[in-house]
């Protein structure tokens, strides 16, 4: 009997795809002129967002209760991998008029 074996293999492959997305990506957000660019990004569960500060002034990336970077001096970066879907609003705790959004689907 061949059929059941094939079915089982097919199911295993599906489970594998769901558990570890094959194409986890790193999405870049830059900080220039006290602005997160792009201000809003849409990513998939498992993707990583990396923020890099290009200003001569330190900034932070803070999403209340979710993640918090250390102070990013010029050219410093911070990365966070999103494990759950949802809207992650964030801001710079030093310059709170700087805000951004990561939408995780």
């Amino acid at each position, binding site marked *: 009997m061949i059929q059941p074996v094939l079915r089982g293999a097919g199911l295993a492959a599906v489970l594998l795809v769901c558990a570890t997305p094959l194409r986890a990506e790193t999405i870049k957000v830059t900080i220039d002129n006290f602005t997160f660019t792009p201000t809003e990004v849409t990513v998939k569960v498992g993707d990583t967002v990396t923020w890099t500060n290009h200003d001569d002034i330190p900034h932070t990336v803070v999403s209340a209760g979710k993640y918090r970077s250390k102070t990013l001096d010029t050219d410093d970066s911070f990365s966070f991998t999103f494990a759950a879907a949802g809207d992650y609003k964030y801001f710079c705790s030093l310059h709170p*008029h700087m805000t951004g959004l990561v939408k995780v689907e």
Partner: protein
Amino acid sequence: MSLGDHDENGVSRRKVLECMTWAGTGVLWTLSGGVPRSLGLVDAARAAEQPAPGLTFLQISDSHVGFDKPANPNATGTLEEAVNRIKAMPVKPAFMIHTGDISHLSKAAEFDDADRIISQSRLDVHYVPGEHDFLDEDVKLYKERYGKGTRGSGWYSFDANGVHFVGLVNVVDLKAGGLGNLGAEQLAWLEQDLKGRSKSTPIVVFAHIPLWTVYPQWGWGTEDGGRALDSLKGFGSVTVLNGHIHQVMQKVEGNVTFHTARSTAFPQPAPGTAPSPGPMKVEDARLRSLLGIASIDFKVGDERLAIIDTPLAG
């Protein structure tokens, strides 16, 4: 220039507001019957020759020790220059206030350097923190050095020559999308601190971020600053001094004079004139005209107040 050169009814409110200025060698202000009047631009050297008043104190701000970017690769050096000017003043000020951003990254070495240089002024210094002084994880370094005897995150008050000074902290617990923040606990303390004081007591409030809304698009203001000003209502003479925006700006509202000081480290652009409020690179020859210190004179009883901004170089 003497105060008597000017007639009493001379300057309209419009004129006063026109005198908000970014440049010049200095602006002398006097407070007469609760109404601040600009006496116009004065030569810094001549301003220093004004007769000794009841109380003279200095404001220094935004030293950013540790900053080394193109806008000023040597912020430590220009702080030293500022302190040298202070040492050379003909009249020794009673004390100095520092309105925050002593350091650039809250590093121990930066605070060490700042202390070493500022202490050469041989003046008592009263500090409030800027957001750059609160960058270490648990905000220990500022508090250990400058926070002794203060409340909360570093607020306090003291009296000198009949003037009541209040140092406020508006750089903690900032909310997304918002401006500077004082918080309920500090506001309640302020109300208590002012309660029962004679309304004729001149009040000087100092904080890092402006208490008035200078330019919200750049976060230049304090969300609950209006509530602090409510507590100050009724006092005949209120002066609010701050740093943070690295340029001289003045506003008069009723009995309250708001004044921002220059940085000793680097200039920032006038509101809305650049893509961001970040450090402004100017020609090297111009840098020192945009950095400096402020000295404030009170003539208690005359209800006069004069603020003289002195750049590091004309």
